[in-house]
């Protein structure tokens, strides 16, 4: 039993070390659907929205065109959207080709970004300011063209 206690202690130490190391990770490096590496921590926007979606998620697909329109409208004011697909490369590639939305999508192949931003619902949107601080995480779909969201974005962009 002494050996067992020692084994459990060692296991807990390893677990704690890995958990600590994971929590202190500063940079999330992903690939886009064309295989190019992209870091999503350092983005040159006044307001960034890291948006999580998937091709098999119907609410995501209903929301995505609205978000793309909003980004286009507010791009000049400093809004940037990072589209993170929690999906496989082929499905993302086919979907973007068919829909011709004109966006790049990053692939969160092993769920690294999902874990970092504690995403438990699709779609989800994380609002990040120019300093890289998370302002808010919204779980579930958003009416991007609704008055409430338009006002909110204007406020965040005018800070």
């Amino acid at each position, binding site marked *: 039993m002494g050996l067992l206690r020692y*084994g459990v202690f060692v*296991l807990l130490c390893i677990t704690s070390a890995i958990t600590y190391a*994971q929590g202190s990770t500063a940079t999330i490096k992903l690939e886009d659907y064309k295989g190019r590496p992209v870091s999503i921590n350092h983005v040159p926007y006044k307001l960034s929205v890291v948006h999580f979606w*998937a091709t*098999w998620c119907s609410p995501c697909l209903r929301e995505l065109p609205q978000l793309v329109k909003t980004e286009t409208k507010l791009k000049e004011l400093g809004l940037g959207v990072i589209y993170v697909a929690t999906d496989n490369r082929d499905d993302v590639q086919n979907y973007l080709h068919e829909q011709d939305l004109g966006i790049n999508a990053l692939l969160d192949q092993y769920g690294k970004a*999902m874990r970092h931003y504690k995403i438990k*619902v*699709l*779609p989800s949107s994380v609002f990040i300011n120019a300093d890289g601080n998370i302002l808010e995480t919204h779980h579930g779909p958003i009416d991007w063209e609704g008055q409430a969201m338009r006002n909110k974005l204007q406020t965040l962009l005018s800070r």
Partner: protein
Amino acid sequence: MLHYNNKYIVLFLITLLSSSQVNALGECGLSCCIGGTNTSGVTLSENFGLSVQYERMNMKTIRRDSQEVSPDDVINQFWSSGSSYAVPTDMLMEKLSLIGAKPLNERWQILGIVPLVRNNMDMRRKMPSGMTMNMTMDEISGLGDITLMGLYTAYTDAPIRAKKRLTLGFGIKTPTGENDIRNPMGNYVHAMMQPGTGSWDPIFMLSYMRAWYPLITQINILYHLSTESDQGYQFGNQLNLDLIARYQVSNYFNLGLAVNAIYAGNDRDHDGLYSQEATSMVDNTNNTGLRSYFVTPSVQYKIPNTGGNLELKYQLPVYQNVHGYQQVTDSRWMATLSWAY
């Protein structure tokens, strides 16, 4: 014959590796709750997953090779005048387990399995006088062998609802269960009836999942390397191969069908503490080791708007070929309630 701990670990991992898809399938209403699904392929939850599992296994049939024989056939084969000989007529093995799963990062997850076991056995003994008696053994119960496992996602094409995923696993079965319980006469209770094995055993696993949603298929290979216990008993090594198919019937129901192949080598009783070849069918390492094939239908239900799911499985043997004479599994039920936090 296999120790119950060996059988249990395999069946649990099959459940774990094949059940964690249910929450992420298909249309998901207003938004797609993925809490309780997997990011690493085998994760029960983003933070912590807990399962309670009840398993009940009935064993009655005795086989020689693949042929069914009656208890009296075995007794008549081995009983000799002036001595006694005992065979099992009915065995019921139950296990209640608490299982915890904790993802460490996007690729690694650790599991802990804490089992409580309860074993019952009826026997028939032919006495030196030639008279035959049926008897019930004292119930054996207590903490079984705790298992710790690490699972590593070697490849996945997506964090949730993956279409291809390869998972590797390594674990240790620890000797926390008693393996030296004795009967009222002072002899060791049969090795496979003991709550634990008394040995530190490494476990190796490989699992490959391929999905064509709503159909999910999976191959699992698991190897349990048994080592010698502190009492000198060594269970046979065990190799399991599972072919699993699951089909999503609706947002909340999955139906599954698995074919399970099990190969177990012969046990060895190095110090002879558990062996009574002349008087007992069970206490004889020549009557250990087998090849078995099972089919396992299952149904899984996701409890709406929660991180919970319930799964029921029923395992039926289709072919069993044993070394010597052995009592084999006639049926096995398993119910698992899992909750993701």
